[in-house]
């Protein structure tokens, strides 16, 4: 491999990328989300999806769910880098546990008339999407499911008059009686 002139060792890395969902339990305090996001941008990691909300108000705990991609070595780095942050209690790799459920909620606005409108409603029914707003020329559907299902639904709505989409990002939880 030819090296360009550099004071650094430049290398190609060929390990395949994997997608992992991480659940991060943090102290809910000012700046905690900025710390987590700053870590990802500062170290060049990817964020595919990010969901955050306080989950236990009395203990000031928030749960951040991050979907990220990287080589296995990078994924391990991300987990370690998150885990060493002062306000982080716990990092769980939901993908690695292989016992997790992932859900996302999307609101999908579709505008159309006639056959398109009927078809949109029919598909929504097949996907178990609910109508949460309607006018004579539009619907807003609420759909819940894993990312693939929502992507598929949105793709189907596109030719039927898709106007806009609002998605929550992925939330994940482990199966079975145990907590994380």
């Amino acid at each position, binding site marked *: 491999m030819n090296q360009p002139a*550099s004071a650094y060792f430049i*290398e190609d890395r060929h390990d395949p990328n994997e997608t992992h969902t991480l659940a991060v339990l*943090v102290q809910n305090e000012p*700046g905690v989300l900025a710390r987590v996001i700053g870590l990802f941008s500062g170290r060049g990691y990817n964020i595919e999806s990010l969901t955050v909300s306080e989950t236990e108000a009395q203990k000031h705990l928030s749960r951040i769910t991050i979907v990220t991609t990287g080589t296995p*070595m990078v994924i391990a780095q991300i987990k*370690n880098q998150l885990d060493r*942050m002062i*306000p*982080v209690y716990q990092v769980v790799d939901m993908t690695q546990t292989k016992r997790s459920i992932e859900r996302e909620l999307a609101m999908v606005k579709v505008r159309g008339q006639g056959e398109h409108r009927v078809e949109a409603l029919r598909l929504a029914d097949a996907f178990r999407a609910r109508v949460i707003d309607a006018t004579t020329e539009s619907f807003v559907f609420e759909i819940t499911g894993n990312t693939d299902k929502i992507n598929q639904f949105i793709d189907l709505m596109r030719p039927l008059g898709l106007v806009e989409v609002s998605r929550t990002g992925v939330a994940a939880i482990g199966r079975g009686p145990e907590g994380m």
Partner: protein
Amino acid sequence: MSDKSHDPNQMTGAAMIVRALIDHGVTDIFGYPGGAVLPIYDEIFQQSQVQHILVRHEQGAGHAAEGYARSTGKPGVALVTSGPGATNMVTPLTDALMDSIPLVCISGQVPTHLIGNDAFQECDTVGITRPCTKHNWLVRDVNDLAKVLHEAFYVATSGRPGPVLVDVPKDVQFATGTYHPPRKSDVHRSYAPRLKGDAAQIRKAVSLLANAKRPVIYSGGGVINSGLEATKLLRELVEVTGFPITSTLMGLGAYPASGKNWLGMLGMHGTYEANMTMHDCDVMLCVGARFDDRITGRVDAFSPGSKKIHIDIDPSSINKNIRVDVPIIGDCGNVLGDILQVFKAEAKKPDIRSWWQQIAQWRARNSLYYKKSNDVILPQHAIQALFEQTRGKDTYITTEVGQHQMWAAQFYGFEEPHRWMTSGGLGTMGYGLPAAVGVQVAHPDSLVIDIAGDASVQMTMQEMSTAVQYELPIKIFILNNQYMGMVRQWQQLLHGNRLSHSYSEALPDFVKLAEAYGAVGLQVHKPADLDGAIKEMISVKRPVLFDCRVAALENCFPMIPSGKAHNEMLLPEQANDEATAKAFAGGKALV
């Protein structure tokens, strides 16, 4: 209504800061006043337990605190104002983060009601310093201040040490609240560094060590951070196993340079024997080092045949650059103690005589060779002369960054930890002079020398004024080659000898400059005068700028060229134009 005026724990935020410093045993801080810290300065004025050293630039305060910390093992403390005071701290904070130096920075902030208003001397200090601190806090309520200050000291000094920053708005400094002394509940429950190594992993490590044929110990700054006990245990492990030992730049002094198992520093400008031993070993024990890119060379050719054991307190250091076989997360001192105990109980010193014979052959290449001259001072010779003149003295060395730093690491023999203060990870030119100020404050009667370059030293030269004010007799030993030597070296090697902006034109007259500051200036040109001048420098009990004029075009070897492995070092005797061209060939290297 209860009368709180007699409660000794009722005080202003500014008073709490000084009180917390005292409660944490802080005796010296480095700082620079400004509008947003005036209440704190007013408190400092009215007490005598904490000595404040006035620097000339906030960056100087940060590096001085680093030098103080590195040479004592205690946290260094810096106090700066809002806005530019805080932004000037970014370099030392980042430097301390990279080298795991415990630093507590207290910064003033504009009053809370002005935050976000683009007020005078306002900046988003916690936002700016978030990526360059281990943790930081903005304190909005005076009743949180004591807890935050105590936690700040704990976070800075525990686990993997690092810099922290506490940003205190001016109204919080004025407000009165309740102080409490340090207590356990001040710390985030989510923060619990692991100190004790896993017993099963330690057994695996011992089994590898006991059966090694070609072992090496590679130690780093973590051993020094862990404390004197870790150094003692490391030395004992070397003794018990008979293994060769090398160290990173940050780890120098943990094992004595005069020790018989010492291979010298490893890495880009490490010795041939250290790098060859790393490359050919079958078992590597890495203690408190992080496989930095200056150490590993080409990653995919790094020590290809070895089983690697890695002891580190920070799990994120494990498998970051190099995949290891036996990771042990824990404090170096703890883990070394456990390894020694198991090794002594269950294992024998392995027979590695043939390995030592091999190492002797590499050593015989004399990779630090340079040709002395009677006409001009070689920089390597200057360091050796300085080392000889200070041997056995109570000496601390700091450096700037560049060729002089590498020569100092190669030619100055460190016998003890905490004696070597250098900017390893960040490579901060301008670190050494203020760091020397901090070291001298901590060790007023010791000999403190900043081995400097003519370019680096000008970056923080203003701190000479601090040294003069506080009668700190630091010695600034400048290897003056009138170049940014390391930049020039890379331009020669990689950029067709086009010396773009690496020549120091219009250098000041360092002797006159010293005199202008009220310090002592010395200059030496001839090798024959060097020893006498160094003696004079040491005997002067005032700050000295020592302008040591050295061979201008000398380069730093041996060297691992970029993209090459440990066993592809360029040795000094091979470093003629043709060999250099070949070693760096590839890509556009030498167009």
